């Protein structure tokens, strides 16, 4: 799942100054509320209060909740989106079969039924999953929602020529008939082998192979119902039909979305939503530092991207106790790491790979990504928010261990060191800084890195993810980053540690090549007991590090700023950003 990061600041000094002024002008109003929601004057919410508790809880309805983001995300069509912010936000206008519980911290990772009455019931050893829809749920035009609308929604987004953005889980796992191309190209093909709708309230999914975590698929926005007669293909994004408490009033691409109450949403059918504001206004394309300024000043409530304030604002916030009290600093489910590619000698030798990890200045890498507030030094590939995570202690996490690195080089038969090439995304200054840090650190142990930067748009398709290129150009290290689609081992790891899917180009994993790990992935996927499945994913993380297939850099963190007058604010463990489902305004 992708995260939306703002573009670099124009001028840090000016911005920092402006933020300081902004803070001076708007900080002293005493508008911060305490955890019990009482008025100003009592105990104020502290920094990180939103990580484990609800800040300013309230059931007060009314008002306009103002959100903004620096750039529009991929799509508001629930079947065509791959951003965490979008999966989080889309729930105010769309109801997937299940979703993540609106609760702070780890509680937010719990799956709860939404459009369905209960979580999925599996049969056929985990190959079949059945959901019953709630009675009385309607689209915004008053049409009752049936299981056929959910089936149509899932089938339509399988057409990746049309809906290029969304994930491909249903494409990969559903037992689709071979002659089915898409609902548009082959509308008459019977798809009951993949999805059945025996009645208007029941939907049954059939998978090609067992998968114990199917409820996470059911929580994807792809299961938000779409009425077939209102589907306009890729133009559906101009007005997705609402099944949640809000519907789109205006969609202005690249400028603004406004949502108003859906008159046909019934609270009685929806136990998880409060539907507090009367209206949502989402501004798109807001300058990143101005966005921070406006949240500080109270003109905006939420930075929809949920990745934290800009670097210019961090120092200002840290220096202002009142502003600092309005912040939360969650560790996200994203790891920045460096893939160590074993295709080219001597990195086919595990000890040579270990030499790189031992020699790396981990603090330097952390600083490259913005320091302690921006990232925690990662000891494994899997971030702490993922089920099954356990703290690994296989390598030092300080400024590099020259002795151990040299010993590893000795063990791999390269006591004088070796040369290799490292790639990074040239339009990402942090990646470049990290690459330079590693270059300097490894030079101390005799490993000479040649750095090569490539544009993000072609990074995986033409360079770091293309085996023909990496082999021909002696690419040994490739900067990488990955965030979880959902916080389970499968949701985070499946695409980046499985060696069995290597394409001609566009690969995200060219480093982890282990039959043992592949076998463990299969075990985890078929394991019906979640705790056992989690444990296997934890084991996989350990195997990845033992094999020195990656050099983990940081688990990303973001400094989130709570908007003034915002109610029910908390960081959901499902998204590692503020939960947008039940926010309100005073």
């Amino acid at each position: 799942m992708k995260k939306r990061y703002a573009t670099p600041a124009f001028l840090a000094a000016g911005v920092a100054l402006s933020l300081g002024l902004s803070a001076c002008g708007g900080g002293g109003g005493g508008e911060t509320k305490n955890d019990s929601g009482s008025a100003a004057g009592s105990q104020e919410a502290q920094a990180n209060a939103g990580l484990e508790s609800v800040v300013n809880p309230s059931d007060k309805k009314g008002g306009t909740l103002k959100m903004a983001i620096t750039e529009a995300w991929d799509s508001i069509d629930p079947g065509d989106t791959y951003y965490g912010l979008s999966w989080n936000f889309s729930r105010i206008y769309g109801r997937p079969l299940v979703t993540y519980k609106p609760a702070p911290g780890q509680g937010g990772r719990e799956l709860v039924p939404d459009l369905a009455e209960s979580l999925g019931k599996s049969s056929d050893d985990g190959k079949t999953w059945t959901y019953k829809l709630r009675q009385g749920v309607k689209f915004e035009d008053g049409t009752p929602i049936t299981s056929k609308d959910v089936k149509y929604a899932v089938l339509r987004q399988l057409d990746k020529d049309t809906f290029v953005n969304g994930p491909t889980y249903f494409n990969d796992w559903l037992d689709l008939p071979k002659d089915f191309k898409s609902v548009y190209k082959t509308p008459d093909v019977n798809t009951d082998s993949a999805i059945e709708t025996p009645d208007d309230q029941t939907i049954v999914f059939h998978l090609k192979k067992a998968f114990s975590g199917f409820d996470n698929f059911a929580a994807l926005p792809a299961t938000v119902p779409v009425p077939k007669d209102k589907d306009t293909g890729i133009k559906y994004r101009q007005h997705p039909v609402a099944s949640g408490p809000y519907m789109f009033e205006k969609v202005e691409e690249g400028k603004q979305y406004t949502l108003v109450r859906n008159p046909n949403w019934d609270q009685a059918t929806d136990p998880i939503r409060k539907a507090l504001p009367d209206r949502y206004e989402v501004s798109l394309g807001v300058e990143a530092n101005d966005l921070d300024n406006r949240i500080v000043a109270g003109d905006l409530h939420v930075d929809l991207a949920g990745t934290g304030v800009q670097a210019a604002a961090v120092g200002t916030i840290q220096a202002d106790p009142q502003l600092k009290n309005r912040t939360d600093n969650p560790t996200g489910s994203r790891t920045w790491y460096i893939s160590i590619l074993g295709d080219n000698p001597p990195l086919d030798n595990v000890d040579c790979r270990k030499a790189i990890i031992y020699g790396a200045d981990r603090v330097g890498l952390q600083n490259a990504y913005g320091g302690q507030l921006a990232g925690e030094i990662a000891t494994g590939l899997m971030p702490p928010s993922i089920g099954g995570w356990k703290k690994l202690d296989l390598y030092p996490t300080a400024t590099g261990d020259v002795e151990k690195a040299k010993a590893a080089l000795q063990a791999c038969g390269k006591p004088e060191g070796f040369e290799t090439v490292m790639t990074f995304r040239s339009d990402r200054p942090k990646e470049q800084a990290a690459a330079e840090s590693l270059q300097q650190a490894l030079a101390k142990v005799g490993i000479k890195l040649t750095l090569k930067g490539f544009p993000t748009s072609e990074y995986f398709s033409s360079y770091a993810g293309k085996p023909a290129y990496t082999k021909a150009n002696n690419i040994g290290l490739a900067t990488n980053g990955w965030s979880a689609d959902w916080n389970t081992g499968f949701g985070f790891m499946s695409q980046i540690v499985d060696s069995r899917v290597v394409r001609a180009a566009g690969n995200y994993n060219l480093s982890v090549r282990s039959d043992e790990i592949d076998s463990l992935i299969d075990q985890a996927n078929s394991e019906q007991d979640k705790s056992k499945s989690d444990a296997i994913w934890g084991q996989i993380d350990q195997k990845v590090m033992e094999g020195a297939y990656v050099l983990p850099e940081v688990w990303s963190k973001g400094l989130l700023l709570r908007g003034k007058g915002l109610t029910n604010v908390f960081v959901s463990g499902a998204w590692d950003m503020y939960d947008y489902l039940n926010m309100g305004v005073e």
Partner: protein
Amino acid sequence: MVSYIIRRLIAAVLMLVVVSIVTFSIFFVIPRLAGVTTIDFASRYVGSKGASAETVAAIADKLGFNDPLVVQYGRWIKGIVLGAEYDTGASVEHCPAPCLGYSFITKTPVWPELLDRLPVTVSLAIGASIIWLIAGVATGVVSALRRGSFFDRAAMGVALAGVSLPIFFTGIICLVFFSYRFGITAPGGSYTAITENPGEWAYDLILPWITLAFLYAASYARLTRAGMLETMGEDYIRTARAKGLPESKVIVKHGLRGALTPILTIFGLDLGLLLGGAVLTESTFSLPGLGKYAVQAIQSNDLPKIMGVVLLVTLFVVLANLIVDLLYAVVDPRVRLG
């Protein structure tokens, strides 16, 4: 005069054709020469993690990247002249002429979006240009007439600051002070169409106008001052004074008129470029105009949008220059068109 205009319009069309070829070459031909494949092009439009090679190949085919470059260019030009059709999955969407392209990222035709963004940019550019023209020229004239005075030195000092301070600095500072601290101007991102509420329109734009005008007024003041100093030393000024004309008439009718020609030239270029998008101002104030649109297109690598903006900017610059050339004859009696 008429034949002059016709000749210039024909030249403008030729210029647009040349620019279209250059633009197309920059985005499609040069990358291909540098080894970028059609699959690489298509990968830009595939958002999902791990999209299969088949999917990417199908999209490359669907978007026509596998066709010869001449065919691709011809299709683009044909779309501009005759319109084009695009597969939206559920149906085929017609993009009427002038179809400058179709964004496969936002799934929208480019031309309607440009038209949608244009009023914001026109509002910004026209409002700011009126302010900077009046303020800049007036300051330049007074400075020239009071050369060496405190006003002259102060005005030129401020002008130097105006030229030196980038708009993303002054803009953010102004926003913080006037919008967020004092609350007397609209916050960033505010825009109301003039047709909806002219008062709100002006209120929303006054800060961007002034900030942008400050930048330009500075250079116009310096330019006017230099022009006036030169003109006021001309023989015909001495003649005008010798004939007993009032000083105000000498300054405005003879001095300023002569000094305005270079101002007009630069004004035409500036206004034309601004109409194509005041990139920094619109970004700083989060205004949804053509400049912001161009930035968004570049950041998302949305080639049809970038090409559409480039063509529109070219059109504005060419037209602005044509208008300026026509105005020469009005401002300076020595100029004759024909």
